């Protein structure tokens, strides 16, 4: 898969619920429409929460990539 170029990076490694989602929401709020947020996270709950939240809010979840020891999420703001 081609590299996704993100406009902003958010490091949520080591954080547990609800901090990752709170930080993601705040970061997305500060982006412009069409810009991409890259999130690094280690909380297993984030996967479902991000997916559900993007569906609800209309943002596009471009990819979830499993790296060694953390997940990368790419979210495109609607």
């Amino acid at each position: 898969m081609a590299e996704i170029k993100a406009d902003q990076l958010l490091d949520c490694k080591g954080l547990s619920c609800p901090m990752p989602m709170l930080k993601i929401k705040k970061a997305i709020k500060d982006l412009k429409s069409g810009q991409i947020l890259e999130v690094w996270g280690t909380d297993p709950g984030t996967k479902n929460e991000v997916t559900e939240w993007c569906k609800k809010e209309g943002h596009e979840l471009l990819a979830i990539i499993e790296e060694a020891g953390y997940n990368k999420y790419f979210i495109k703001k609607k």
Partner: protein
Amino acid sequence: MSTFFETLKDFYQQAMKSNWSPVVGGIIIAFLAVLLEAWYRPWGIVGGIRNWGEWFWYAIGVIEDRPPHPIWFSSSVLNLGLVLGAFISATLAFEFGLRIPPLLEIIKGIIAGILMGIGAGLAQGCNIGAWYMSLGNLSGSGIIMMIGLFIGVFIGVKYLLWEIEHLSSSGGREISFGKLNPILGIIGIIILILGTYGYFRSEHEDGAVLGGCFILTAGIGYAIHRSRLCIVNSFREPFLSGDARMARGVALSLILLTLGVTILKMAEIKEEMLYVTPTFGLAAFLGGIIFGAAMVVAGGCGSGALWRVAEGQLKLWIVVIFFSISNAIFRHYLDNVWEVWDKGYLGKAVFLPHYFGYGISFIIIALIILIWYLLVDWNEKSEKFVIGI
């Protein structure tokens, strides 16, 4: 052959890898909690957590009486079972890993843990013993606790929103266990089997009883982790995002639990005053506020902290350690030094059927849950109570 293999693979995917919905988790937990109460005693978290903390105070000479052994003390066994069940769930799903939080989270864990110990000391239990099981056992204290929890959670959410604007934290990491996960899971299953067998075969007078407690709470731990059932979430998200999925699961679970326990008590299988604590009044109200605010900052309630301990969230390890130490000493003072419960100004024991009979009491609890359900459901669309981002 290949089709049977695929069936197995599907089963693994459904039962062990993917998350269950809060409704599925809630139903299974209610079922197991009713079985546990019928078998021996109501489910609880804080009794065991306090027992661990008492050992700390005993070791340094502050508490003189030797606390019960954690392996032979039912409250503690309930927690051991829950943690083991959640650990099995986490490892079989490749979700176990040591998550090391940034410094700010560690500080929050210490403060929230201490406050949870104090809140749960006043209320004589956490969100499980003093709310979920308290309502299920038709105790009036659970209703007061619920009001306190709402106020506390609101305060906690206000803090989180402030924090997100003013403080930043990053630099956490994870020590992941990758392919070791299923091996740890199998070790967990072996410990569960041997432990249960050991309890049932032991000479100890409570052996068999504790064996049942151990395996039933392991079932609760497995279901609670797989569904990530989180009572903090059910109280918090209606304020924070409006999302009501967790609240719906918890509400359904509570109604089933209350129905089950009502039958156990009505049929005189269980003693009616079981889990009816002398906290109807200030104790449950203040305890609920303090515990509610703290559990939001901790990111886990009594049960939620334990299942996150089992998946390797170090912040919650810190929460549980400080929770246990603070609860043990605070309850020691409440019970033995200040002797507050006999004086009665913190509250009294209210068993609802003594005032309303069993039928009306069940309806009161069910109505409270129904109103909560309808409010969060309506809020999900209208966002009337949402103060979050």
